[in-house]
Each structure stands twice: as structure tokens, then as C-alpha cells.
């Protein structure tokens, strides 16, 4: 796969491990989206990880979580007060323009313009969140 690097390979290995462990992750368009999304997720690696809080909050458990609600992470007041519950539509809107959707967020990131990239990234986050290998 052109451009596949170490982290993406690790992500694919994680997804493969999830499949091998009997999780409902078979090769499908959704898994392909998630694999591409895994490569996009590398852009987040300066601040985010799936399984631990860093400069940004961890992403395991993200889907369905109220924004700004992790007890062991210091969010911006704006994020805590946003009232957002993370879902595919809310993530899509936020990822397109974080500082416009939540003015005052500490995530000073212009956003992901390409709708397909956002879809793939969200597919990856969904797959990771449903994987015991990536989000134990």
C-alpha cells in the first residue's frame, strides 16, 4: 500500500488483531475507510492518543461521550460548556472547523476540509472504539 508507514501498519495490525480475536471487523468498505482514517489519525499524534490523555484527551470511549467530560483531563471552559455529545455528525462538524464550532477550545487547529477525510477519520475512531485490541 503506497504511503503506508509504521503507525498505519500498527493500526492495521490492531484492526487485524481485533478480527483475529473474533471481533466483528471483517474486510469491508467500512474497514477500508477505517484504514485510511488510521493514516489520517497520524495528524493528531502530536496531541492525542487513543488510550491515554496527553495534550489532548484520549479518544477511547469518544463516541457517545459528552464533550469536556473526562474527569482526569483539563478542558477549556468552552469545551466543557459546549453541550456537544460526540457522534458521527457532531464529530464531522467539529473536525471541519474546531475553533468555529467551539470558540475558545484549546484545540487550535484549522480543521480537516476534505469531507471524505473526515468520514474516514471518524470511521477509524469508531472502529478503534469498538476494538478491544485498540481500546481495551
Amino acid at each position, binding site marked *: 500500500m503506497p504511503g503506508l*508507514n*509504521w503507525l498505519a501498519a500498527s493500526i492495521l495490525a490492531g484492526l487485524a488483531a481485533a478480527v483475529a480475536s473474533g471481533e466483528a471487523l471483517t474486510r469491508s468498505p467500512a474497514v477500508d475507510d477505517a484504514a485510511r482514517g488510521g493514516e489520517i489519525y497520524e*495528524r493528531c*499524534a502530536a*496531541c492525542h492518543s487513543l488510550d491515554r490523555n496527553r*495534550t489532548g484527551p484520549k479518544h477511547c470511549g469518544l463516541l457517545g461521550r459528552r464533550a469536556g467530560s473526562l474527569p482526569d483531563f483539563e478542558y*477549556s471552559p468552552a469545551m466543557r460548556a459546549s453541550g456537544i455529545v460526540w457522534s458521527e455528525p457532531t464529530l464531522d462538524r467539529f473536525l471541519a472547523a474546531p475553533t468555529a464550532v467551539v470558540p*475558545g477550545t484549546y484545540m*487550535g487547529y484549522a480543521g480537516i476540509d476534505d469531507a471524505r477525510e473526515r468520514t474516514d477519520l471518524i470511521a477509524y475512531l469508531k472502529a478503534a472504539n469498538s476494538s478491544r485490541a485498540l481500546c481495551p
Partner: protein
Amino acid sequence: MSFFAFSDARLVMPDRRLFLGSAALLSGAAVALLAGRDALAAESRGATEANDTNILNTALGAEHEAVAAYQVAAESGLLEKPVLALATQFQGHHREHAELLAKTVAQLGGKPAAAKARYTFPTEKLKTQADVLRFAAQLEKGAVSAYLNAVPVFGSRDLAKAAASILGDEAMHWAVLRHAVGENPVPVAFVS
């Protein structure tokens, strides 16, 4: 040295610069100034500076972590001498970035983010020098994207320029680390 040393200190007030530079790019503050609404302009400028401070502090938090990550790498015992020298040099760059960011946050009236007492890294996955270098490359790639996406959301064009300067440094780190593990150091024409 300050972030603002990248340009004229008068340009600390980004919205005024926009006002003076291009009518087509008038910000909310500039529009307010134009209308003689000084209080509103000041409020808008304050919001811009608060936003810039937030961005700088987020970057500062990531730089603190990068310094800590290179420290873990240096102490891992996995790096050969020339690679260790390189890691130490890169750590020094991140330390310089952190110092500059902290100073600028303070100049803007903010409280610089402090380094955490303890960082957690996936050390259980770092068994070889190549593992360490790939991990560092992953962080540097993320940093490139982070700064790239910070540039357009700064209210101050001088801060954006300074962030771009750091971006260039992190991109060089990323390329060198890729090269060190035998990967194409510059695989694409654009970063994202």
C-alpha cells in the same frame, strides 16, 4: 528572543495590522475601530489574544511532551552514539520551542502551561533503536500537522509566521528520522 521578534513589535496587535494592510481583510476589531467603537474593538482584540494564547499554550504542552519523549529515548540505552547525539539535538530544539512559547504566552498576559510531572509513553513497544526512531517520527509528523493547522487560526500573523518557523524545524526532524530508519525521508510534496 520573543515570538514577536520575528517581526515588528508594533504588530502585536494583529487586527490593527489587518486594518492597515488590506481593506478586504478587515477583521471584526478593525471594523469596530473604523466605526469608532473602541470598546468593541478592544474586546475583539482581547478575544483574539486570548485565542492566540490558547493555541500557544496547547503547542507548549506538546513541546513539553516532546522534550520528555526524547529524554526517554536518550535514556533507553537503545540508541547508538550518533543517533543519541541527534536525539539530544532534536530535544534541544523542542526545549527552545518551549521556552519561546512560554515567554510569548507570558507576554500576552497568559500563564504558560507547565510540563507535567510525569508522562506516559508506550515504552513497552520500544524494543529497538528503530522502534524509538519511528515513535519519534510519529510525534514529529503529528507536530507538523499541528503547527500547520495552527497557522491559519492565529489572530496574529506574526505568531502564525513564528509557528511556521517551528513547523519547518519539526518537518526536518521528521524527515531525518524517516531517513534514519530507511524510509523515504520526504515521501510527499505536501504535508497535511
